[in-house]
């Protein structure tokens, strides 16, 4: 469903993503982990069509993000790390706008909006202007908007930031259910516990390189017992391989 083929992207001299090869199928929740500046957000921005690969190609549902942008983005729902909503519109008006932009008719939008309002518990504030929302309320509304058109791929950048424990649970359950229903989720996160809990596969990036790609069980096989928490494995991997990657990049 998602394919990165030999993708590289640099910011001037700095290589943000270096020769990334990755394929993620429907029904998978892929958690991309990495330090700040590892290249996660660049990878996500290429995946949603905001920036273009310097080399290689990114495809969603077989569509190239550069040459077939509209086809590809119509399959995607995107939840950015900093939720942006039109502050002079209500949550319901935003859901309506997004749904119609994805080609849904009025009736479909209304049904889908009610579904998401119920699922994300937005009923209490969905008819108020979004300028009055807290960060968590905004994040939940963005999730609702991203899922409104039943995308095949959900791209989520740091989904747990700013959420209260109840909302976190809500989001984690939601992602699990969607993946079970066949959705493909690509998530970037620093919350290792959440990744450990819900991801079917993880990728660990450092200095633009994908250091590891596989299940958490596969990763555990590489480490001795006692060092098999995701946190310990992540730190061990990024500290050793990360140094090598940095040296290579230099």
């Amino acid at each position, binding site marked *: 469903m998602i394919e990165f083929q030999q993708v590289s992207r640099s*910011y001037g001299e700095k290589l943000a993503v270096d020769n990334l090869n990755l394929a993620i199928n429907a029904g998978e929740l892929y958690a991309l982990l990495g330090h700040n500046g590892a290249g996660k957000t660049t990878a996500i921005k290429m995946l949603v069509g905001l920036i273009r690969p310097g080399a290689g190609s990114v495809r969603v*549902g077989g569509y190239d993000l550069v040459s077939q942008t509209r*086809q590809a983005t119509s399959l995607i729902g995107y939840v950015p790390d900093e939720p942006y909503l039109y502050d002079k519109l209500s949550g319901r008006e935003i859901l309506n706008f997004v749904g119609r932009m994805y080609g*849904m008719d009025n009736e479909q939008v209304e049904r889908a909006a009610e579904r998401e309002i119920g699922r994300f518990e937005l009923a209490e504030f969905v008819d108020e*202007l979004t300028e009055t929302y807290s960060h968590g309320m905004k994040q939940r509304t963005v999730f609702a908007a991203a899922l409104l058109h039943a995308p095949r791929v959900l791209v989520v950048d740091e989904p747990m930031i700013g959420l209260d424990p109840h909302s976190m649970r809500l989001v984690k359950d939601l992602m699990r259910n969607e993946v079970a229903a066949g959705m493909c989720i690509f998530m970037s996160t620093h919350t290792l516990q959440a990744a450990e809990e819900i991801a079917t596969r993880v990728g660990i990036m450092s200095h633009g390189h994908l250091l590891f790609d596989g299940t958490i069980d596969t990763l555990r096989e590489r480490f001795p017992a006692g060092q098999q928490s995701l946190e310990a494995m992540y730190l061990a991997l990024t500290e050793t391989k990360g140094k090598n990657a940095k040296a290579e990049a230099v």
Partner: protein
Amino acid sequence: MSAGSADDYLAPAIAVSGSGAMRAVNWPATLASLPSEDREAQLLWRLRYRTARTQLARLFVDARLRTILVSSLSVFFWIGLFLLFYEGFTFIVDNVGVPGAPYHAQTVQFVFHLFFASLNIMLIFSSGIILYSGLYNSPDATLMLTMPIRPERIVLFKFQEAVFYSSWGFFLLASPIMIAYGIVAGAPWFYYLLLAPLIVSFVYIPCSIGAICCLFVIHRLPKLRRIVVAGALLLLVCAVTPLVWRTVNSPQSRLFGTEWFQDTLYRFRFTQQEWLPSTWLTNGLLEAARQGTTTAADEATDLPIVQSILYLALLVSNALFFHVLTIWAAKRWFRASYASFACRVRRNRVIRRSLADRVMSALLVGFPLPLQLLLIKDWRLLRRDPVQWSQFLIFFGLLGLYFLNVDRFNNPHNDIGYLTWINMVSFLNLAVVGLILSTFTTRFIYPMISLEGHCFWILGLLPIDRDTILWSKFWFASLGSWIPCSLLVLLSDVMLRVPMMVVVVHQLTCVLLCLGLASIAVGFGAMLPNFRETSPSKIAAGFGGTLNLVLSALYIMVVVVLTALPCHFYLLAGKGPWGASFVDPQYLRLWLILGTVAAIIVGAIATVVPLRRGLRAFRVLEFA
């Protein structure tokens, strides 16, 4: 792991069933099901309509004072402009020639050509800059790019905003001129009917050129550093300034003579080039205003209405051409340029202690250390934020240019009219400096306390009392504004060659204005803080900011009138026919002293009261 082919995912419909019965959506996510171009445009217009409707409703509910103030000032400004131009055109009719006379036509053409040609250039720049920030620096453009919306539609959506924001000032300026001219020239009904379409179609052309330039520049030169752009602009200014100077400069002795008039027309002939849209607009307007007398021998195409419509057709067809070109450029360049722009190299600035900081530290040596540190912090924040000082620089720079040219109409004769004019202009200049300063204290000083709310985890825990923080803002604002303001006022006085006594009065008034305006802004900022908002412009636009602006303007008017009037009468006493009878010369010195003392008292009240109230409020303020 195979990602599968595109057809596997899109044919013919996607049925996603998620968490039980709640997910029963079944809608076709094929490309054909996405909105058509027209539908996309409708949806974006609806978005704009809803946003604007809510914004307007909120304006009348949450910011009634500001809305009333802005509307009233705009109406006042419009009427003022209309009267000014009405008088100007009447002067031309009375002194140069009636409509139809050769000198009348030449003069009006000259004014229109020059006015619209200048706006032509300004519209190109303003629409390009507004579009740049709308497309490349706004979160909603980013959001739209992640949705299956056509890039050209996003550009058009933002372009419409750019056209609106860059041209509203043009409408505010052009409409009173056009209407005043129509009335003075006795224009027929279709002149007024054609005004709006002529102006709208004209505005669209430079705005489209600005948009295309913006897309092209970002597309081709994403790595261009701002310093390079600023350097190029500076070079351009340096190259153009001598040309402009030569164009506007002429010997004083020939001012307003026939030779001067012809020479001026000749020097500005470049504004009358046939290929300029401003020329088409001018010709369209003048043709529509022409008093056409039809005879049987006339061709139908010679009729004023036909000629004017032909120019309108020329403008509309060109506007449409540039519209198509904008769409073409957007389709071709926008996504790619956005990506390149997002990935541009950002150089991290290495901050070292600069000469400016050292100078500031030396200047503040007499202040207590905590106050010094706070002042230097605010100075650094100001210095490193070009948005703040560049506006200050532009406005004060323009004022400086105006002051440098204020002696253009200098009259060697020592008549009463000239003396009145000199004195009035010098005090008006002082008031203008004060009014501009008040907009800056409202925009930049008033929000400072609200913005400190976000950093109060630092300031609130420091071992200093809260008064020091507020005092630092006051000194920062008053000292920072006093130096440029007093220099500007001095420049104006020197250029106008006003007597030394007036210079002293002006400098004293300037000090009073700086202290009072700083105190009002700091005091109200502490009394009416807004910790929810992070944007200083939005804080300034709220109720407290508007109140601050209104009170500042009132304060300026009171202080300037108190010092200006006695000074005015004192200077004119005995020099005019009414001088002695109007105010007894023997009391004039007393009036002057009383006026100055009254201004000092008002200044002291305006400085002490808001600051004291602000200090009191700030001591018990909770940074929730």
